[in-house]
């Protein structure tokens, strides 16, 4: 590939000075050239796999193997191998389902909502975040499929004619969830793949081996960069973003309806849909930061995922974390204000009952910790941001545990009350889903460009034909 320059030299052209108050931190640092962006990102999947990659990949693959063992054991023995017992009939299975699917939401928010809002910084992080979405939804999808017990009847969830002539019952929110989650997965894959097509063409045109030429060429679909194609492509991308935005808002809303359509104190509330969506975006941004902070340092991507990107993602985390904190306090207020003794008991039981050990980290990690993001010094300290991003997801796991397990373990009839314990299969399955997630993610960064090459090229100053660096003629500035 042509060597070219790695950075543009602004001395070659006269760039008029922007007034200080209008200057912004550039999205691509050091005025990197188009060629540099291609070389930098593509080399990540062209060079030999680094040692650290194997160090992470082997345990991940082993964890994935453990997941397969746990699932086979559960299928062959029965759901009784999990700790789910009356009255806690939903436990870690649904906690982990909601947790993983929530993590996925940041990817779609970055790729769709920020695209519609013309937040051009999304281009640096959207590819990896969308991949994260797909893998998180894969992990999530395992649980509802498995928790039905007889997994070989899972196809009854879909409107497929069966021998009993009975159809799915669409008045149940669980059926809505089937449609929401499967649509979410499908559309996320379409959106991600469509964004990949021009970058697969980049990989195809650089490929040195026949194998790479064949596979990148096949999946690039013969993309040439024709502007007649770009014109349709950009319109299709805009429409997909417009469709994904109501989709991502509906998915976690419908997940929350699984709970709020029931009659249970602590579940039966109208605040659930927006509160779940905010929590999902909050946890998703936590995961994006957890993944990208180490990757940008290891892969030397500081010019593409700049401190401005990190700073903005911390601000989104702060905003959504504050919405979650507001929702927590509003739940308590409504419990008191409703005058409903069952509702009041449930919330006192959350904070002071036998599961207080789960409630305290939930409030700490989700409400108090993100408030530190008000401080610029914290947002610019990568180590602290990394630790906080992990705490966000610890807190969000406890939130789902609090809602589901505390909601169920003490219902209306005290003789029903019980205390829930997970089993080793619960724990093994959960750890195993991390194996699936990280195996997929590590394969992704090995074989596919983890930064949207052609999109990042489009946000550089030299991509703009009306910018001096893009070749536009600069009118002589005449002094007044």
């Amino acid at each position, binding site marked *: *590939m*042509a060597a*070219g320059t790695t950075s543009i030299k602004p001395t070659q052209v006269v760039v008029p000075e922007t007034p200080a108050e209008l200057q912004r931190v550039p999205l691509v640092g050091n005025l990197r050239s188009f060629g540099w962006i*291609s070389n930098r990102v593509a080399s990540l999947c062209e060079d030999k796999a680094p040692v650290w990659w194997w160090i992470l990949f082997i345990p991940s693959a082993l964890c994935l193997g453990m997941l397969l063992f746990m699932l086979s054991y559960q299928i062959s023995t029965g759901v009784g191998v999990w700790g789910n017992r009356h009255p806690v009939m939903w436990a870690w299975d649904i906690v982990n389902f909601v947790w993983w699917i929530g993590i996925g939401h940041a990817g779609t928010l970055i790729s769709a909502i920020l695209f519609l809002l013309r937040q051009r910084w999304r281009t640096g992080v959207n590819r990896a975040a969308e991949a994260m979405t797909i893998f998180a939804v894969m992990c999530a999808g395992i649980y509802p499929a498995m928790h039905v017990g007889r997994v070989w009847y899972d196809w009854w969830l879909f*409107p497929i004619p069966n021998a009993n*002539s*009975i*159809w*799915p*019952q*669409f*008045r149940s*929110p669980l*059926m*809505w969830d089937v*449609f*929401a989650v499967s*649509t979410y997965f*499908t*559309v996320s894959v*379409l*959106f991600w793949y*469509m964004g990949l097509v*021009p970058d697969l063409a*980049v990989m*195809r*045109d*650089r490929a040195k081996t026949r194998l790479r030429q064949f596979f990148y060429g*096949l999946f690039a*679909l*013969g993309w*040439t*960069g*024709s*502007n007649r*194609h*770009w*014109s*349709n*492509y*950009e*319109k*299709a991308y805009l*429409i*997909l973003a417009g*469709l994904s935005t*109501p*989709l991502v808002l*509906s998915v976690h809303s419908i997940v929350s*309806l699984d709970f709020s359509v029931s009659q249970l104190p602590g579940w039966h509330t109208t605040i659930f849909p927006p509160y779940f969506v905010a929590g999902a975006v909050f946890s998703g941004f936590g995961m994006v930061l957890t993944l990208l902070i180490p990757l940008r340092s290891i892969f030397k991507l500081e010019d593409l995922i700049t401190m401005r990107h990190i700073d903005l993602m911390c601000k989104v985390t702060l905003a959504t974390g504050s919405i979650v904190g507001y929702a927590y306090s509003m739940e308590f207020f409504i419990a008191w204000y409703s005058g409903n003794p069952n509702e009041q008991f449930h919330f006192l039981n959350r904070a002071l009952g036998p599961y207080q050990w789960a409630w305290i980290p939930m409030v700490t990690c989700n409400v108090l910790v993100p408030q530190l993001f008000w401080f610029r010094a914290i947002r610019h300290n990568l180590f602290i941001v990394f630790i906080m991003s992990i705490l966000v997801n610890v807190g969000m796991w406890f939130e789902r545990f609090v809602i589901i397990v505390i909601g169920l373990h003490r219902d209306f009839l005290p003789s029903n009350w019980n205390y829930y314990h997970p089993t080793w299969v619960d724990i093994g399955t959960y750890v195993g889903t991390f194996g699936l997630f990280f195996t997929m993610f590590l394969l992704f960064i090995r074989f596919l460009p983890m930064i949207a090459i*052609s999109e990042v*090229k*489009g946000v550089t100053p030299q*991509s*703009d*034909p*009306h910018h001096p660096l*893009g*070749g*536009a003629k600069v009118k002589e500035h005449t002094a007044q």
Partner: protein
Amino acid sequence: MNGLSQQYGIVAEFTNAASVLHAAEKVRDAGFRKWDVFTPFPVHGMDRAMGLRNSKVGWFAFIGGVTGYTTGMLMIWYMNTFDYPIVIGGKPLFSPFSAFPPSYELTILFGAFGSLFGMLFLNRLPRLHHPLLKNKRFSLVTHDRFFVVIECTDPKYSENETRKLLENLGSRHIEVVEE
């Protein structure tokens, strides 16, 4: 080169966004029909410079969305009201409210299919074999170069004059690509 090989078109290379944009405006004004601009990323304002109309992808997505919503509502009505009605919790057999969430999801699903496959259809993709993809120099289009390609089948095409036009537009590298 044997005499049987046919020419596909003339390829002119440009090195920055502004020069290819101005070249496109000139080629458009010269009245060419079968030509295209190739860029590593969508260049802002290029559709207008080429005189392209608004993309028709929206229609595919719209028809997909309408189909999805109608399919959802009709399917749920047929299954739960007509083919095998079961009363559950005293709820009505069909309600547009409980049928809405799955229909809404199907609207999005079919709309997304319409938009992706509509885009591929309008672009006549996948097309793995293309004369330009065989050209070594042209592979820089996904790297950092910009190209204007005028096909030989264009009625206004003449090798010498078209080459002269592209040279005047500032292209430093011009070659004719075989079919």
